[in-house]
Every structure is written in C-alpha cells, then in structure tokens.
C-alpha cells in the first residue's frame, strides 16, 4: 500500500531508465535502455496518484488496467502486476519498449497535467522483464477446446496477438508467415538495440506453448490462397495481418543508383539477415562514409541510428518539416541526438547524384519553410528558392512511408480494398467477405504495434463470435 499523501507523491521526480552510454552504444547493437531497476521502479510506482477515475487507461489502445498494475508494483507483487497487464496486453515486454507512450497512456495521466506523467511504459517493461528473468511465467490455462480451425496470416504484432487470443478461446490456430522468421516488423524492422530478439523469441515461444502451429516460409496468395485455406485446408475463419510492407520511393532522379535503399531493405538486411555480423552472416550491406536517411518517423530514426552503429562517420536525418512534426517516438529522437545523429530539418531531397558509374556520391537538397496548414492540419513545407545545396553522402536510405503488400488482395476475389490498397474492415475487424477478418497496418496503412495488437485482439473476439454463431 502506498501511504504517501498526494502532495508528497507529486514531489518525487520522474525516474529515468539506466541507459548505455551514448558514445559507446552508438557503436554496438546492444539495447540502449536497460530499463528501471527494482529501486527505481518502486520509486516510480509510488508517484502514481491512484486516481479515482484512472484516465490513463483510456489513453491505452488496449485499456491496460494501469492503476491496478502500478498498485501491484507498489506492493512488490511484480508477477501479479504483469499478469494484470497481460489480461489486456499479451506482449508487455514489447509494448513497454516500443509504445509511443507519450501520445497514449502517459499523455493523459493526471500527474502529467502539472508534473511529469507516471512512466507507465517503463514500469510495464520492468515487470515484464522481471517475470522473464525470474522464469515465473505460467501458460494460461485453456479451459475449453472448441470446434473450428482458424488461420492467421502474418506474424507481426496483430497476427501474434490474434493467434494467442484465439488459442486462449480454445481454437486450433495455424499461423502462416512469408519470411523465414516470425515477428513481422518486430523482427525485420525494429533494431535489436531497441528490442532485443531474445525478448521476441520468448514471446513467440509462449504463443507456441498455447498450441499455435506456425508455418514460416509460407506466402498466402502464393503457396496457398485465402480461398484454399477455407476449401482445401479446412479453416473456418481467416485473420489477415500482413502489414504494410511495400516501401514507397520519393520518385526523385537517382533512386536506382547503387547505395540507395528503402528503409525496409536496409533494416531487413541488418536485422533479419544480420548484415551487421557480416561476413559471419553472408548478407552484405553497402555503407558509405556518410549516410543520409530521409523521413521523420520511427523507421527513419531506426535507419539513421543503425547507420551510425554500422560505422557511418556522418549520419544525417533529412526531414522536410520541422522537429515538432516528426512522427517518431520522442525517446528515440532524443536517443538519436545523443548518439550524434545530425538532424537536417526543413530540408527536402530533390536529386541523388551519381559518380557516373551508378554509385551515389551526393544528394541535392532544398531548404524549406513552413507555410499554411495542409489537409493533415500540419503546416505545409514550401521550398525556399535558391537554397539548394549538396550533401556529400554515399548511402541514401528512404523512409518515406509504405503501403500494404498487394499479393493477398490480388489473389482473394471480392475482397474490398481502398485506393491505398489497404483492406477495408467494418466494426469488429470484419472484411466484406464472410469469415475473413483483418487488422493492423494492413487495414490502417501504417500505425503502431499496440494498435495492431488491439486489432488482433478485437478480431479474435469477433472470430469467436462468428464461429459460435455458425455452429448454432
């Protein structure tokens, strides 16, 4: 029990994670943040005001019962705390690390009105890590085995969550993944220095322990179509969680030069194929002395910080709007700065320059200023004439957005899609075709881990309802 008065609690400053030294970590792939230790966690938890109306919960897309879990931390019941979280969020060790908390739970926290909000994400991570380290995880008991086989397509956070939830309902679940490893963006996109693979591996093992069967190297739409999953494989429902993996390019001259990457390719080579361990691993990567990464989101931030770690002398982040508009998580921007990333804000690339032999030698850019607000409500960047300059770089990484991969949409007749090739879903993640549900980046066109998980969970509930209805 926390016996401190509210006024006392408010005096305690927000506790900070232990972090690897910036200079050191900018040369390795080990995790940047080591999280809170027990003392820090207890201090941090004691800051919570235990509000009568815990508004923080509403800020969380899956409505984690934050107040209760923080109370359990206060009582040093760390394992119970993580169990509480897991009632609504099956991947706390991951969310505690990668959620944009400052926009979600922590954004609405009452304490945050006048002081710094409770470090909810850090506490979530602390208890999840505690449970992993102490080996106290217990597989949830599956009470009833139910009739009906369900296929989950894609093993990103939406698919993993949907599969876990369905398994808990008692269904026989099979997960299909195109790549040779499971995890989606958590595996190939987000680098190890933000999300160690051991954490992901443990989460995946737990999902397998629930009885979920996993096929890797299996592309739905190619190895089997969605309709074949119903007709030939005997599945009664299908969840599509194939993400938004197709990279956009800016369409400027010079994008076919050697040394120009999509962030997806760059990060896939490094994370999935382990190019950072080349030549121990076979997959190579081309890294010039100087690297420019285009974009302002998490993907751009991961690309530029990875470049630095691979040995780039100068790693630039080139973004056409200003700092305030950058969609990346605040913590990552802050970490990138500490690591010596050079931010070129209000800068727009116009052309990538060749050495005459198809190799990148530079990137022409233009300075921008902010004009009137555009459709998105953000002030629109407009070029300043005569401000062109050349950035001397040998590698250019474009992180300018992505769209869903069209393979499934093209091979599933009648499935409704939008102009942006996202799959259209109604309430409860239901597509226009009976028995087919979808969620995550595939329906949102690029969002967050926790929103993908939310969709996976909603879809599992909807599939459960659908199958109950059908078995009547």
């Amino acid at each position, binding site marked *: 029990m926390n016996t401190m008065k509210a006024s006392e609690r408010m005096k305690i400053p927000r506790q900070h994670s232990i972090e690897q030294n910036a200079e050191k970590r900018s040369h390795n792939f080990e995790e940047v943040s080591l999280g809170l230790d027990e003392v820090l966690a207890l201090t941090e938890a004691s800051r919570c005001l235990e509000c009568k109306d815990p508004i923080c919960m509403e800020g969380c897309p899956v409505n984690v019962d934050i107040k209760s879990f923080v109370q359990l931390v206060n009582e040093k019941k760390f394992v119970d705390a993580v169990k509480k979280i897991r009632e609504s969020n099956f991947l706390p060790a991951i969310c505690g690390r990668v959620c944009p908390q400052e926009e979600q739970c922590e954004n609405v926290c009452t304490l945050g009105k006048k002081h710094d909000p409770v470090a909810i994400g850090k506490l979530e991570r602390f208890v999840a890590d505690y449970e992993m380290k102490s080996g106290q995880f217990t597989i949830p008991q599956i009470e009833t085995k139910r009739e009906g086989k369900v296929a989950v397509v894609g093993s990103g956070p939406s698919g993993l969550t949907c599969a876990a939830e369905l398994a808990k309902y008692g269904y026989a679940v099979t997960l299909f993944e195109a*790549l040779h490893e499971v995890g989606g963006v958590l595996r190939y996109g987000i680098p190890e220095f933000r999300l160690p693979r051991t954490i992901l591996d443990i989460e995946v093992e737990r999902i397998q322990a629930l009885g979920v069967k996993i096929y890797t190297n299996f*592309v739905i739409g190619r190895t089997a179509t969605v309709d074949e999953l119903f007709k030939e494989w005997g599945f009664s429902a299908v969840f599509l969680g194939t993400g938004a993996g197709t990279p956009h390019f800016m369409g400027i001259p010079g994008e076919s030069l050697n040394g120009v990457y999509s962030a997806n390719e760059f990060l896939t080579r490094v994370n999935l194929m382990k190019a950072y361990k080349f*030549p121990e691993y076979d*997959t190579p990567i081309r890294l010039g002395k100087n690297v420019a990464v285009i974009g302002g989101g998490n993907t751009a931030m991961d690309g530029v910080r990875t470049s630095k770690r691979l040995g780039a002398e100068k790693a630039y982040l080139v973004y056409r709007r200003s700092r305030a508009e950058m969609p990346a998580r605040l913590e990552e921007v802050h970490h990138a700065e500490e690591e010596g990333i050079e931010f070129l804000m209000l800068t727009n690339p116009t052309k990538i320059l060749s050495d005459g032999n198809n190799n990148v030698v530079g990137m022409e850019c233009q300075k921008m200023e902010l004009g009137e607000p555009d459709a998105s409500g953000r002030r629109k960047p407009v070029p300043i004439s005569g401000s062109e300059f050349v950035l001397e770089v040998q590698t250019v990484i474009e992180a300018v957005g992505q769209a869903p991969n069209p393979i499934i949409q093209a091979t599933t007749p009648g499935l409704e899609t939008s102009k942006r090739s996202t799959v259209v879903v109604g309430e409860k993640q239901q597509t226009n075709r009976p028995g087919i549900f979808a969620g995550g980046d595939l329906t949102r066109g690029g969002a967050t881990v926790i929103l993908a998980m939310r969709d996976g969970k909603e879809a599992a509930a909807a599939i459960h309802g659908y199958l109950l209805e059908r078995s009547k």
Partner: protein
Amino acid sequence: MFKIIEKEFLAPTVARFVIEAPFIAPKRKPGNFVMLRVGKTGERIPITLVDSDVTKGTITLIVQGIGKTTKELLTKSAGDFLSDVVGPLGNPTPILEKKTVACIGGGVGTAELFPITKALNDAGCRVYSIIGGRSKELVILENEMKRSSHTAVVTTDDGSYGRKGIVTEPLKEWLDAKTGIEAVYAIGPLPMMRAVSNLTKNYGVKTYVSLNAIMVDGTGMCGGCRVTVAGKMKFACVDGPEFDGHDVDFDEMILRNRSYAAGEKTVLDRFEHAPGECRLEKMV
C-alpha cells in the same frame, strides 16, 4: 527444413536438385521461382522452379555455382537439408498457344527457360530453340530442350560444341528467313538478353526476358530488386521476373547487379579458404 532427395551434376559447376517441398510442388507454374537459404547464416537467393512432381511433393532446381551461396549449395548432397525454401514466387510466364516462338537460353538460363519451352510446346507452339553456352561443358539440358522444340541449335562462344558464336546469330537468321516467329523468350546473362532484345526490336517481335535482379525477400517488401522498365520503377520479384525486353534498362541493371561485388568476394573467399576442408574439391 527442406530435404534434398536427389542431386546430380549436369556440368562441372551446374547441378540439378530434387527437393522435398510438398506445399510448393502443386503450385508451380513455368516462370515461378523460390527464395532459398542454404543454412542459418546464409543469404536468401532466388532460384527458378524448373519442374515439380505433385505426387511425390518435390521440386526441381538447377543451380550454377557462381558465388558463395550457390557454391555452398553445390556441396550439398541427397539427404542434406536446406534451411528455407519459399514459393512459388513471381508471376508465371504468359504461355502463348499454337504460335511460332523462339526460346533462347544462355548458360544456366537454359534451366530457367526449359519449363517455359516445355509449356509452350505442350500448348501447341512451334518452338525454335537456341541453347547457348560459353563452352561445351556449360551446355545443359540439350536433350530436354530438343524434345520440346521443333528446331533446336546449340551455340558455344569458343566453338567447342555446336555452332561457334553467340545466340543472336541463329536467331537473326530465323527472323530473316521469315519463320513467322511471333514472340521470343530469352533467359540468360544480362548482356545476352540485352543483345537479343536489341535485335528483336528491329523486327518488332515481342520479347520476354527474365530479370535476375538481386533480391532479399522476393515478396515485394524491400524494393532491392527494383528495375527500370519503360521508364518506370518495377520490383522484379512481384512485377516480374519477366518483362518486355524492349522496355528494360539493361545498362542500369548490369551496374546495379554489381552493387555488392566486394562483399560477395569476401564471403566467397572465406568459404573457399575455410580451414579444415577444401570446399572446392568437394564441389567437383
């Protein structure tokens, strides 16, 4: 894990593999490929599906050893396993029916071309084939190609077998002789496909080429395989691998395929000079 059922050398550096892949076998169409990884630290590489046996659940691949991954693959034998095989990927080749066509293979490209030639022949086409190789040992699948062709000739660069010269020579003769060739399917090294496309352009004959871009995932997720076709960016793995040869920017592609020359050499040297055993000897 994917078990190797059979392995046989067709040429000193080219081998045919039959691999257990029960999900892929029934789905294979001419022109499709798989992405494979030999081992857990390996690269993902694209290899064409040459054939499949639906009842046995096997696929056939023909691989030429040119760098680390393909040479390592050639050291594998029946009973060994590959860690990953995924497919079938890419768009199937458009197979014309009851037309006169030419099929031109260069080097290991003949292996990639063979399933297409067979499909065209089965679809009632009159097929003129050219099997090109640098020298006699590198001419592969001659009998198979001949069985599926109305006319087939072999060319070698050094004249050690068949006609001396390059594949475009017999093709030009056929085009000049008004054989009625309506479409050409060419698969081989990029300079060969460029030469064929340049030739057929003059005759206005539709030419399909299969682009061996460097790939990572093979499913449209990385954009590494991008090629310029008719001035537009295309992803070879999902938009191709076949394109209209008259629209392809071959010069750019040739330069792009050299992107990793240094790294490729590093891993190959490391592989060939690994202590303990001589991989090269084991290979031949």
